[in-house]
Structure formats: C-alpha cells, structure tokens
C-alpha cells in the first residue's frame, strides 16, 4: 500500500510540472501579446516596452521559465499584474471558500447519488426510471441557469437562503452553512446524476454475485447485506466517478462562484482572465492541479481500503 502511495506521489511531480509548464508556455505559444493587450490600443509604444520589461517579457523564454519555476517551487507565483499583491497570498485567502464548495458538492453528490442509486438497483421500475430522468436533466441544465433559478425561487420568492455572498465559518457557522446551500446544490446536481447511475449499475452487478447469495443463505439481514457487503464491493467504480466529479466541480466553481458572488478561486480566475493577469491565473491553474493530485491520492487510498486485493499488489 505504501508503495502505491509512493508511486502516486512520484507520478504527481511530473504532472504538476507539466501543468505549470503548460500554463506558462501557453502565454508564449499563443499568438498574442499580453503586454500589448494590457496596454490596449490607446497605449504608446513607450508604455508597451516599459510594461514588457517590467513583466520580464523581453527576456529569453527559457530564462523566464527557469526563473518562474524556481520561484514556484518556493511557493512564489509572482505578483498580480493588477493590484501587485503576491499571488500566493491572494490564492490562500480564497482557498477555503472553494474547498468548502467543492468538498460540500462532492459529499452531497456522493450521499444523495448513492442513496438514489441503491433505490434504483432494488426497485428497477420506479426508482430506476427516476434516476434515468434525473440524470438527463441534471446533466443538461447549465449550472449558471440552475443557480439563477434557485436564487429566483429560494432567495427572492421564498427568502430561505442569501442570494449571493459568502460568510466565513469563523464569523458564524450557521450563516456559513446557509450561504453554502444553494451553490453546493448547483455544483452537486450533475454529480448526483452520475453517481446515482454508476451506483445503480454497479450495485446491480454486485447483487448478482455468488457471495451475496452465500451471506443471504447464511441468514444475514438485508440491511447489512446491502449497506455493508454489497455497497463495499460496488463502491470502487463509484469512488472513481467521485474523483471525476471533484475535478468537474472544481471547474464548475469558475461559473458558480461568479453566479453567487463567492470570493473563491474560481471567481478569482474569471477576474484574472478579464484583467489579463497571467501570474494570477497561472497560480490558480497550479493550485487546481495540486488539488486534483491530492484527490487522486485519496482515491487510491480508498481503493486499498475497499478492496484488500489492491493492498498486496
């Protein structure tokens, strides 16, 4: 097991390197010039050259990359072009908002999806059809539209939750939770559909396996067979899907944080894009990738816990 974790960690180093390099090189590869874009059509040639120098863009690409990478390894993504604050600081302040949203959405998708999926596996007719219908609609409604619909319904028409904004946990745990409900539901909706479908299919397959019959024949109650034994064996593909949902929700925060005016990394990424703030958006990309790496590691650990055969391989 330790070796699997070790391998995964070793593999994640090149991944982080590839992503950071990619985001860095994109700027050089894409036909276009950040300095020109920032200065705008009204800017003078002098302003342009000055900005280019201050951004280090007049240096050879490799030198710039070397410098940038060295700084990144020390946790320094440079300063924001817009307000000149250190990128690392800007990101760290907003990390907790995004984590609250994404972890909340993944958990909600897991719990509701698994329950729906089990219902679908046990009652093929009603719950099965419901899962199918829900998954189609859940995947088709764009998150910004669903978010606005929920705001119109549960913040404007029936004021149960705040329409926008984020309350830090330290300020008021209850308000923190209330501010998270709508965005988490929006982020989790496509995930619920996918988890429910996967759980249903995987549970159906497991319930046909001989060991279920052995346990039932030996007299174990249905509850234990379904929730302990069958679910455990059916869980591996569901966990895989949960990993993908985490990544998808991370992408989803870009839109959802904008809809709900949440001060997280996703909203920051949009802001950085409109302001052509390259160091900032590179920082967000590396942070997001690092989160994906951590989640993949957790998933590997979960496989080992779920299936003892993985531990010895």
């Amino acid at each position, binding site marked *: 097991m330790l070796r699997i974790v070790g391998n995964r960690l070793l593999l994640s180093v090149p991944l982080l390197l590839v992503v950071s390099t990619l985001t860095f090189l994109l*700027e050089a590869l894409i036909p276009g010039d950040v300095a020109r874009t920032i200065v705008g059509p009204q800017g003078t040639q002098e302003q342009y050259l000055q900005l280019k120098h201050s951004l280090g863009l007049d240096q050879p690409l490799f030198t710039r990359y070397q410098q940038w990478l060295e700084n990144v390894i020390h946790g320094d993504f440079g300063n924001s072009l817009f307000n000149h604050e250190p990128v690392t600081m800007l990101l760290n302040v907003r990390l907790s908002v995004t984590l609250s949203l994404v972890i909340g959405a993944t958990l909600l998708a897991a719990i509701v999806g698994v329950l729906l999926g089990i219902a679908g596996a046990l009652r093929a007719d009603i719950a099965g059809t419901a899962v199918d219908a829900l998954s189609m609609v859940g995947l088709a409604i764009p998150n910004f539209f669903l978010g606005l619909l929920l705001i119109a319904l549960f913040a404007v028409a029936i004021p149960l939750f705040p329409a926008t904004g984020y309350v830090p946990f330290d300020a008021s745990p209850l308000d923190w939770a209330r501010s998270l409900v709508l965005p988490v539901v929006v982020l989790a909706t496509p995930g619920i559909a996918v988890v429910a479908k996967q759980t249903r299919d995987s549970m159906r397959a497991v319930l046909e396996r001989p060991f279920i019959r052995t346990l039932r*024949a030996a007299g174990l109650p249905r509850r234990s067979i379904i929730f302990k034994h069958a679910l455990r064996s059916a869980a591996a593909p569901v966990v895989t899907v949960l990993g993908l949902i985490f990544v998808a929700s991370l992408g989803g925060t870009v839109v959802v944080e904008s809809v709900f005016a949440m001060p997280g990394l996703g909203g920051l990424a949009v802001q950085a894009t409109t302001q052509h703030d390259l160091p900032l958006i590179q920082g967000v990309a590396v942070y997001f990738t690092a989160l994906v790496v951590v989640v993949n590691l957790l998933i590997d650990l979960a496989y080992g816990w779920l299936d003892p055969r993985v531990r010895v391989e």
Partner: protein
Amino acid sequence: MSVLTDQIVIGPASHSHQSVRLLLRNPVAIAAITFLGIVTLVCIGAPVTAPFDPLHQDLERVLSGPTAHNLLGTDTLGRDVLSRLIYGGRRSLLSVLEGVVVVTALGVPMGLAAGYTGGWVDRVVGKFAETIMAVPALIIVLVVLAVLPQNEDAAMISFGLLGIPAILRVVRSATLRVREDLYVAAARVSGLNHVQIVKRHIFPHVWGPVIVQASLFAAYALLFETGIAYLGLTADPSTPTWGGMVAEASTVIQRQAWLLVPSGTLIAVTILAFGLLGDAIRDAVVIGEGGLARRAPTSVVTKPDRAGDIAEPLNGRSGLVLRVRDLWVSTTSSAAETPIVDRVGFDVYAGETLGIIGESGCGKSVTALAVLRLLPQGLGVTGGQVYWQGDDLLSMTERLFDELRGSSVAYVSQEPQSSLDPAFTVGSQLVELIRHHQRVSRRKAWSSAIALLRQVELQNPDQVARTYAHELSGGMAQRVAIAFALVGRPKLLIADEPTTALDVTVQAEILGLLRRLQRETGMALILITHNWGVIADICDRAVVMYAGQIVEKSGIREMFHKPLHPYTLGLLKSHPSLAEPRSRLSSIPGSVPSPGSWPPACRFSPRCRFVADECLKGPIPLIDVEPGHSSRCIRVDQIFAKASA
C-alpha cells in the same frame, strides 16, 4: 465537465443500415433531430427568420414579458428577445461545431493509432490522455482567454483539444476489439497496407461510438460555450449570445424573472437534445450490433396439466424436514413466461442425504435456489409449495423467512472463492454471522468463529480467520463456506455442486467433511451434482432431473442396480468409473434442450434410443413403478427388460 463522458463504453457497430433504421424508429431520436434541425435552420437564416434587428433598442418597451409584438418579451434595453436568441444561436452553434470538429479530427486518428498499433504508441497516447484528464479544462481555457481576450474560436479549439481523451479512449477500445478479429488478421496477411485495413475493416466498427461521443461532446461544448459567454469572456455585452442573455437576465432577477426563461430554457433543451440524441444513437448502435440476436424466440410452451407428480404416499418414516410439491419456476422478465423448473416434488427427511443429479441446464440449481427463495432476478416461482415443518416457505413474509434462512436451511455453492465476500476477512464475516444468530459479545463470537473453522478441519484456524477470500485455496475456501453455513446450526444444508471446482483429492476430503458433519449434527443434506461418484459415496436417495422435470426418483441402491429411465441409464453408462470394463464410454447424443424449446411430449425423446410413437403423443407422467421408485417413462417395462439383459 467533459471528463464525465468518458464513462460511456459501447460496442462497435457494423450493421449501419439497421442502426439507422432503429434510430429512425425511436421517437426520442426523431424529436431530438427535428428540434436541433429547426434550431439550426432558423439560426442560419437569422436575417430572414428573426422578426427584429437584434441590436434595435426600444426604450418604450423595456422588460415587457411575452406580448403579441415581442413573442418572448424584451430585455433591459427593449431589444426583442426572440431575435437576439436567433442571432445568438449562430455563434453558439458555430462554437459547438468547432469543438466537435477539433475533438473528432484529432481524437479519432489518435485512438485508431493507439488501438491498432498498440505498444509504445498506445502507452504514450494513454499517458497523454491521463495527464489531460487531470487538468481542470476550464482553467486552461481561461489562460487562453487571458492572452487572447474575447477570442471564442481560440477558446473552443482549446476546449476541443482538452476533450480529446474521452473520444480517444472510446475509439481505442473499439479498435482493440476488432484488431484481433480473424478477418483483420487475414487482411494483414494478404498484404493490404495499414491505411487500407483501418479504412476498410476497422473504421466501420468505430464510427458508431464516434458519432455517439461527438453528440455527447456537442452537449458539453454547448454547456461550456454558454458558460464562458455567461461570464462575459467571449463577446462584448451588446452582441447577442445565449449565455450572455442569461447573464443580463440575472441582473433584473428581482424585477422581471421571466427574462431568465427563454434563454435558459433554450440552452437546457438544446443540450438535452444533443444528450438524448447521443443516447439514442448508442442504443441503436448496440442493438444493431447484436442485441436483436439475443432476443431469443419465446416459444410458448403449452402448460401441461397441473396434476403434477403423483403424490407420494406419506410412508411411516418420521422426521420429514422439507416437502417440495409441484414447484414451478419461470422467467418473469419476458412477456411470455418460460418455465425453467416444471412441477418438481420431493421430500427430505432428517439426517438423510438426497442427491439431485442431471446434466447442466436441467434446473437442479434453480430448484435449490427456489427453495431458499434466492432466485436470481428474472426468475420467479410461479406455482407449487415448499413446506418446512408444516409452514409454506413460499407464502411466508420476507421478514419471517429471513429468520429461517441460515438457522433452518443453509446453502453452500459451487464456486468457493467467489462465494465469500472479498472485502472482509473470513473471521469478521463469521463474527458478523455469529452475532446475528446468537447475540453474543464480539470476543465470544470470535472464539466461536475459531471453533467453527476448526470444526471444518482447517489447519490454522486463527490464521485463516485473519485472511481474505483471495488468499485461500479452493479447498480452504469451500471449508470456510461450509463454516458459514453451519453458523445458524441448520437442520438442512443444500450443497450445490460443492466439489465441482476442486481437485480430486480435495473433493474426497470435502465429501468426507460433509459426511462427518452430518453424522455429528444430524442435519439433512441435499447434494446437487452431476457426478455419480459423489452420489454413490454419500447419498441415501437420488432424484434425476432432465429439462426441468424429475425423470426418476428412488433409493440409491435401486438407482444404480435397476435404473428405470433411459436418461438415468445413459448418465450411468457415460460415467467412467461405472462403465463396464473395455466397453466404449457411451455418452448420450445431443444436448439438453434449453427452457422454452422443450419437446411437448417426452422431453428426452429426441435423444432416446428407445423412442417409440407412443412417447411422442403427449406429456409423460411420473409413475410409481415400484414402491419408492418412480420413473417418467411409459416404456419402462421394455427398457427394464433390455437393460438387465
């Protein structure tokens, strides 16, 4: 977002015409195609179809809601919503097209190359796909948009590039499946070059999955395009875009919530149409490929008279444990019920061993599972009774029966390893079972578990208790499975081919163990087997099953010395250790007819060497030939004479 499509795995398509026909018979597909077609045409012809200039402002009619003048209402500047939707759709649909073209133009060749060449190409492509999937696509596109502001083409091309892994994987696995097929190998031998082989032999199997993926990707591309438009990253605010219109509506959500509806709904419905179309194509492709062949002809079997087996006289023996009467099991999934087990009846007495013998597919295991009420999905008991000490097990509530299972009837299956839960240790499963049956402390249960493992003659019970199923040998796993069955101290143990999967020496040990346990506990045993050696070794009485029916039933001695059914005779003769020395090992010609294609009269008649006209006239009843010995053969006198001659 795009990563989720990767979960869809489908088979290749070859019967393209059939697939297209199936698709056009699916109302959902027709609706999706019609809707997408209309939207596309209306948007392309925007200058003609749009009632107003999308940029024309009319400050007299701001946020009007639907009126006869503006069918879908007006926005914050009094512009016509319908016209803006029609013009905005042009950009959205073009973007979807760009994404789909990029993803197929690059993903399909890469998948073909990886699947067809294999080796290092496959590994490199695989690593590439894995890396891309670990990156949140949207963020990368944002980097692109930061450098190339409001350049939607660049954004969609990047999105297409990031979507490659999903389609690549599907194409690769479809290619891999065809690559090893004989005709592809033959084409390679006959000297066609690789490009020709891929074009002629592989691509026809890959296009189906590709279209499915392209359709699903279109849904994701639209979701994505409207998302970045909503964020205002791709166009200036006056240009109509579907996403941008939702964003504009969000600013007046308190004053005029209606404005959300037209743009949001149109986006959702268009995405839904792409998704449903993809699903419909997948269904059509899968069925066109062979799903139809699986729809077996459901021949309606005329149900024979319900008289059933002739009721056995209740002889003086006491200790009746289980009585099965007219047990009838059928498929429940298809419209016409196909019988699998046809009015089977037998008794089991305390302490005795009843053997059930027959070839595979005769309904032996299904009979056992029906008694335990553990039939797999799609099968159901359609008649008969199973009495357990006077109570009918089949009409009992699930809750009551749950209590009987394990403590009255227990079960051992033929696949020892797969019959143990792979995720828990042997000991923890035993402890759970023991605590369920006896409500004792965990520590007490653990020592009972060790005692049980010792009882089934396992060498290091402490060590075995700490292992998982995959760490046990077949023989050890079967002993553990028997220990599971013994936890509830059952009065009847049903063992379904408990030794078939094991080595010969281990088989003898397991049989010896079962015999010993039976002697010690006094439980009854039903042993399902196709091995006469097992029957001879351990059984008191035997039942022979053929094509869902009991064809012979008697004490073990009578059955070996005086078989009264041609099928029993054939089975006995084909068993190596029982055949006469130097005689040719005779096996019965033909094979067991599958349920649904049973001959209407004597079911064994097509394979019987004694068949006569009278055998084909109608169903044959089970007749008591001698006391305690019955046979389902009307020519039993002639055969009996010949067999002993």
